[in-house]
């Protein structure tokens, strides 16, 4: 089975966006998905991760049975957890640097809002239980929680696909109506998970179902022309409205189209209806307009994204590490826009180089006959 390069490409693109958005005041952040659509890199990442997971582990379930597939999923969960702990270590190291720099500084008083500084031991435990989610450490816990539910969903897809779909969408809907359904987090009494898994599961499992069906006969209605037109209209409307906000932010006299009315539908925590719909519409457009092995996906310009998307967990962690290093560089040299662009470019180049290195290494290790097989099997990377 030929590898679907679109999955790699768009996941890689999402990783680039996440990296760029994580560099503060980065002028490039004006050009990422969040400026032109209601959804952002988080939706792309979760949807594609759901799709590939459904595809890879769904296939494993068909071949090796649900038990083996389940163990494989939990092995992946373990890898994600280790990555999360690695990022937390990085965060703590950065905190140590920051506190040193901040000690009795201008911001010391404000920074004491960071309750975890008072009880670092508790923070470590809460990070291990996924409840401590400081900035830049909020999406892996979501992914871990969702993947833990995947084996059950896969079994459900085979036996009662309608019931699973209904339950998943019903849960999403209930979360939209009752804002109190969420997971408690740390610190503070009112802190909750930055991404509510009860809402985001709908996107992930929809992706997983599509991926699972894609290994068999596909889903007929995805090709429906009217659905395509509807998705195109939705994406266009999303673009016009969201881009008007971006332009308004850059130059005030350009009016922003009804922002206040749409805010309630744009919750990031609860995957608001507009974010959900916009993400699905974009996915449908891509599925229609870009062939899996088309020239646009094999072009040299697409190569960095395909490579990064193929090794997404490693590149995601590397991206976080690089954005932290980028902070330090910008901080030490007091860089302005050109420096931020340079840091972004260097970071993108490093991410791509490491991904290319990993690709080369994996290919060099695999015996010739296994290469094609391996290429298909690693599709389940993060």
């Amino acid at each position, binding site marked *: 089975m030929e590898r679907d390069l679109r999955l790699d490409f768009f996941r890689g693109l999402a990783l680039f966006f996440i990296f760029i958005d994580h560099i503060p005041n980065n002028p490039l952040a004006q050009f990422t998905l969040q400026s032109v659509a209601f959804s952002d890199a988080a939706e792309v990442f979760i949807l594609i991760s759901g799709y590939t997971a459904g595809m890879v582990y769904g296939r494993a379930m068909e071949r090796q049975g649900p038990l083996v597939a389940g163990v494989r999923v939990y092995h992946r969960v373990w890898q994600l957890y280790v990555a999360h702990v690695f990022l937390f270590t990085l965060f703590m190291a950065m905190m140590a640097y920051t506190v040193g720099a901040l000690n009795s500084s201008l911001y010391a008083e404000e920074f004491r809002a960071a309750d975890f500084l008072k009880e670092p031991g508790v923070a470590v435990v809460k990070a291990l239980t996924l409840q401590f989610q400081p900035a830049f450490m909020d999406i892996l816990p979501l992914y871990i929680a969702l993947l833990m539910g995947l084996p059950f969903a896969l079994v459900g897809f085979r036996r009662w696909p309608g019931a699973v779909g209904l339950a998943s969408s019903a849960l999403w809907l209930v979360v939209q109506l009752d804002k109190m359904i969420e997971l408690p987090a740390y610190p503070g009494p009112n802190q909750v998970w930055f991404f509510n898994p009860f809402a985001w599961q709908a996107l992930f499992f929809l992706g997983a179902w599509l991926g699972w069906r894609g290994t068999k006969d596909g889903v007929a209605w995805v090709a429906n022309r009217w659905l395509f037109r509807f998705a195109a209209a939705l994406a266009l409307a999303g673009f016009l409205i969201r881009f008007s906000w971006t332009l308004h932010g850059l130059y005030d006299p350009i009016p922003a189209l009804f922002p206040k009315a749409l805010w309630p539908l744009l919750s990031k925590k609860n995957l608001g209806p507009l974010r959900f719909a916009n993400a699905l519409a974009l996915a449908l457009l891509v599925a229609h307009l870009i062939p899996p092995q088309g020239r646009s996906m094999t072009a040299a310009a697409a190569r960095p994204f395909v490579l990064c998307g193929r090794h997404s967990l490693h590149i995601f962690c590397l991206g976080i590490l690089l954005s932290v290093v980028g902070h330090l560089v910008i*901080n030490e040299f*007091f*860089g302005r826009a050109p420096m931020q662009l340079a840091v972004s470019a260097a970071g993108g180049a490093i991410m791509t180089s490491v991904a290319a290195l990993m690709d080369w290494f994996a290919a060099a290790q695999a015996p010739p006959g296994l290469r094609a097989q391996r290429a298909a099997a690693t599709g389940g990377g993060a």
Partner: protein
Amino acid sequence: MAGSFLRLAVGIFAAAGIWLLSAPAAAPAQPQDCDVAESFYSFEPTLPNTIRALASGREVIIAAIGGASTRGGTWGSPELAWPARLAAALVERVPAARVKVVNLGVARQTSGEMAARFVREVPALKPALVIWETGTMEAVRNTDLGEFRETVQAGLGRLRAAGPEVVLMDMQFSRVTHAVINIDRYVNILREVADANDVPLFPRHDIMRYWAENGILDLRTPDREKRRQLAVRLHECIGREMADFIVRGAHPSRPAPGRRR
């Protein structure tokens, strides 16, 4: 394919690195004044009622609600914090004015906690203007963005229902904390809410960044005594800048009111 691409990528990276290292370290001129161009907030709505009240010579009450960076006092008396400096700077600009700035800053409060205080503390003061500085706690804790937006929106509604004009003020700029706190997205939310409600936003974050990047204020000084002086100067500058922000539009025929020392 992968090999040649790898070479290309390494080449690009090396080039970027060389450019990065050869870029001159920032060595900007050192202007004495901390003025900023009015283009920082030229599109923000003005405060006609407050301006009128100031010019009338009646006593004008301004309430400043916020966190530690409003309360001040860490580096000296509250007299050195920006609300007190604002009062002095306003009288400089509008000699007829009788201004009293009440500092309601309390360290480490969330937007919700501040909003709850509006009801108790603000109406009794009968202020002409309320300046609400917020967002730091939410950014530090990585709180839900939608909830932050709703809280600020509800708080603004409550404040304005009580009658005064309102100014929103965003977070302090600090390059160091950026690495562990994603401040930008909370600044953006404040900007959006202010904009949608036609409430002026005082862009403290951008202004401080401008000062830092142009060497007007060295926000990174390691020396303790220098840092104390910096805090004093920063609050003085914020107070002066806020005064310019408030009286802007008062004399359309003249340029910005006299501010050069």
